[in-house]
């Protein structure tokens, strides 16, 4: 027993790089030979799926790309999942894309490139990329009151009036559903405060794991129709629309990463209590 | 809330409701948001009243003691006994962040104590403007304790604007000088982990204060004491003795009580509605 205690305590003072190698391997190995783990959707992901499913036919859907490259692994599978879900039912939905983050523009172009390979979409008829506008919450407020003043041209600098699907679209009230893939500020908070609450348009959101708990009260109060929480949330959504993608592939690595961190916390605390008890003895 | 305030605020709210009712007769007023208008005017009324009270005599304003602040005094005492310096990290952001301003205010309080106990104080910063403000705050503290000779400019020194370079610099200081107490007061991002881990490694007392919600959980588990969110702002308001700041804290307290009252009223009214004792549901009327 004493021998075991010594190992745990000694491991605490080992060089930090050993711990780095351990967590690195715990994440890398399952990525190299993926193990298929059963995924169980949580109620908050299910609620997003139901919200998207219950959009009336031939609706106008606004998808906002409010994230950048550094949080792409968590959010990109979500926005792709929602777009696939909307298009796979071919119920005549039209997709309008805005970005509150400058690099959200590139995330949107990347997503459109992937989606175009799977569904033959016609730009300006099935989807329009309105692009990025700086100004954070001011942009959302502007969209709620007069979209045509915020976006006079789309991302390819084409005038709004020349785009057929923009007819009758003057502000957020003309949309039947909004989805924001959000990595921070501006993002879900601003869409709830200046987008969904003032207009009543149903809003769902996919956020990075770190932001999930701050946004969570909106879900219970009904201001948000469910939440996709981090990469696990994205994997659950991929399972719900059963098109396995990059999020599901990452779940094994995510699981082992968590197990290793939990073991570190438990071992670290054991070492702490052991040294504490030994000090109390002398 | 003493009953003088209860009377003022009840009369105030009645006045606001009447004023809003009059306004709602004009079509220029968006009456669908009248409830929000009433709430907004109430908060403004409470704000001006509490700042007025704080301006009259800010010493009479009561503030419960905050465990984190008491721990700071203990930490300074411990450092003095062990003859080792105190490390104070005022966050990595600039003076335009409210949390950095609060961090510099608390620094002034700590500097007063280190002047009194003649303990070493080391303040590495990540922004040039924060360096100036921190130096002013320390100089004032040492003067107020009558120890101008103990203050030297290099106590507060600039390391780097970049997040990880700053973290590496502070870690180097910790390992070299082995301070007995490390205080992290301000706005932090992921580098909070690096400070807390190195501080743990050298066995220092660690006290953190921040409103950055993503970092509070890490500080709570890694430090001995943490001033969490509002505690951090209340502590700095109290120490600054500025009527606007103290008034702000008292306003939030007062409005919080009113809101809890509103929750209970809504709960009761909803229960009555659900049990069909009452025909209308108050919740739908609230904007």
């Amino acid at each position, binding site marked *: 027993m004493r021998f075991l205690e010594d190992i745990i305590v000694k491991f605490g003072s080992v060089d930090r790089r050993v711990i780095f190698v351990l967590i690195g391997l715990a*994440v890398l190995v399952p990525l190299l030979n993926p193990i298929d783990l059963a995924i169980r959707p949580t109620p908050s992901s299910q609620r997003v799926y139901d919200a998207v499913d219950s959009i009336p036919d031939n609706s106008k859907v606004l998808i906002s790309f409010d994230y950048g490259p550094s949080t792409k692994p968590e959010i990109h599978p979500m926005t792709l999942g929602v777009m696939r879900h909307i298009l796979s039912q071919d119920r005549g939905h039209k997709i309008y894309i805005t970005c509150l983050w400058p690099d959200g523009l590139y995330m949107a172009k990347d997503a459109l490139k992937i989606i175009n390979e799977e569904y033959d979409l016609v730009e300006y008829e099935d989807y329009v990329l309105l692009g990025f506008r*700086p100004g954070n919450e001011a942009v959302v407020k502007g969209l709620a009151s007069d979209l045509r003043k915020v976006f006079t041209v789309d991302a390819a600098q084409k*005038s709004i009036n020349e785009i057929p699907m923009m007819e009758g679209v003057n502000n957020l009230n003309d949309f039947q559903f909004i989805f924001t893939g959000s990595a921070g500020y501006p993002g879900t908070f601003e869409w709830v405060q200046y987008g969904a609450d003032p207009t009543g348009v149903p809003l769902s959101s996919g956020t990075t794991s770190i932001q999930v708990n701050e946004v969570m009260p909106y879900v219970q*109060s*009904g201001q948000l129709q469910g939440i996709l929480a981090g990469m696990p949330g994205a994997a659950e959504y991929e399972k719900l629309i059963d098109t396995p993608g990059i999020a599901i592939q990452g779940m094994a690595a995510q699981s082992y990463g968590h197990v290793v961190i939990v073991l570190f916390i438990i071992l670290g605390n054991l070492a702490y209590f052991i040294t504490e008890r030994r000090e109390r003895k002398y | 809330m003493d009953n003088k305030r209860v009377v003022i605020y009840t009369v105030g709210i009645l006045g606001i409701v009447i004023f809003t009712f009059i306004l709602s007769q004009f079509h220029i007023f968006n009456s669908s948001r009248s409830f929000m208008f009433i709430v907004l005017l109430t908060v403004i009324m409470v704000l001006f009243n509490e700042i007025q009270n704080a301006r009259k005599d800010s010493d009479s304003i009561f503030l419960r003691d905050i465990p984190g602040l008491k721990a700071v005094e203990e930490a300074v005492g411990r450092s003095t006994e062990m003859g080792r310096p105190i490390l104070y990290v005022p966050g990595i952001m600039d003076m335009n962040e409210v949390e950095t301003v609060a961090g510099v205010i608390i620094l002034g309080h700590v500097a007063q104590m280190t002047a009194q106990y003649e303990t070493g104080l080391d303040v590495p910063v990540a922004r040039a403007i924060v360096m100036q403000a921190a130096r002013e705050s320390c100089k004032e503290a040492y003067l107020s304790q009558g120890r101008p000779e103990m203050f030297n400019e290099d106590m507060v020194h600039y390391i780097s604007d970049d997040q990880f370079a700053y973290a590496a610099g502070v870690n180097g200081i910790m390992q070299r000088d082995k301070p007995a107490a490390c205080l992290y007061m301000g706005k932090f991002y992921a580098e909070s982990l690096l400070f807390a881990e190195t501080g743990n490694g050298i066995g220092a007392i660690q006290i953190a204060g921040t409103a950055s919600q993503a970092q*509070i959980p890490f500080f709570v588990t890694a430090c001995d004491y943490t001033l969490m969110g509002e505690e951090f702002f209340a502590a700095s308001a109290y120490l600054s003795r500025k009527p606007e700041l103290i008034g702000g804290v008292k306003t939030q307290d007062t409005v919080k009580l009113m809101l809890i009252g509103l*929750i209970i009223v809504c709960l009761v009214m909803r229960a009555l509605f659900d049990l069909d004792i009452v025909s209308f549901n108050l919740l739908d009327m*609230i904007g």
Partner: protein
Amino acid sequence: MPFSTILGAWIAVFLTLGIFSYLYRDNPFYKIAEHIFVGVSAAYWAATFYWTQIYPNLFGRLFAVDSPFASMYVLDKGHEYNGLYFFPLLLGIMMLLSIFKQINWMARWGIAYTVGIAAGLKTFGYLSSNVISQIKSTAVDLFSGSLPFFAMPGDSIFNNIVIFIGTISALMYFYFSREQSGLYGRFTRLGIYFLMISFGASFGFAVMGRISLLIGRFNDLILFSNPSYNYGTFWMLGLIIVVLGYWSFQNPEIKEG
């Protein structure tokens, strides 16, 4: 696979491994990658904000088709001319001029405008969505009879009671005008327990997010190690290990602590 994509992949791998090399120790590769990031991101932000806002929405209005300067230069972005837009232009230029020390007070007008507008938006936005809406949903459903007393998972009256008491006790923990002692002290102690569970959830989600981002980077490195990218990851890994090994042999690490 066009040459520019392969070259791009190799550069991406070099920069990724350069940043990761910081885990071994602070070294020239990390410093180069980090300073490239500093320079590139500054220029990237400037270019993106100019072309998406200043160019179409400011100059688009000042040099619109019907503007008095139309003879000089026309930029048709679907706006009509609006002379008021000289105000933001003036504030913007003052901000740029504030880089010079003696007149750095000039930035204050622009900052004041953004602080003013943000304060006006935030006051209503937070009061309505983050305070009042949350207050309304804390008046929970206890007697509507549509909920079972206890259910796991799913809503229940027991859950609603816990939410009601938890929210109020946690709110009272951050109440500063009364000493936390006696019965009231025990009530706020209950509040700190609810707060701790909430911080625990944030802790769990924060760790989850960071692992996901690491997965994203490893996915890229694995992708770029394929033959179609001429084994970019392996070449770069080899290069960095050799050079780094030699460099750290030259200047050994002073044993910290």
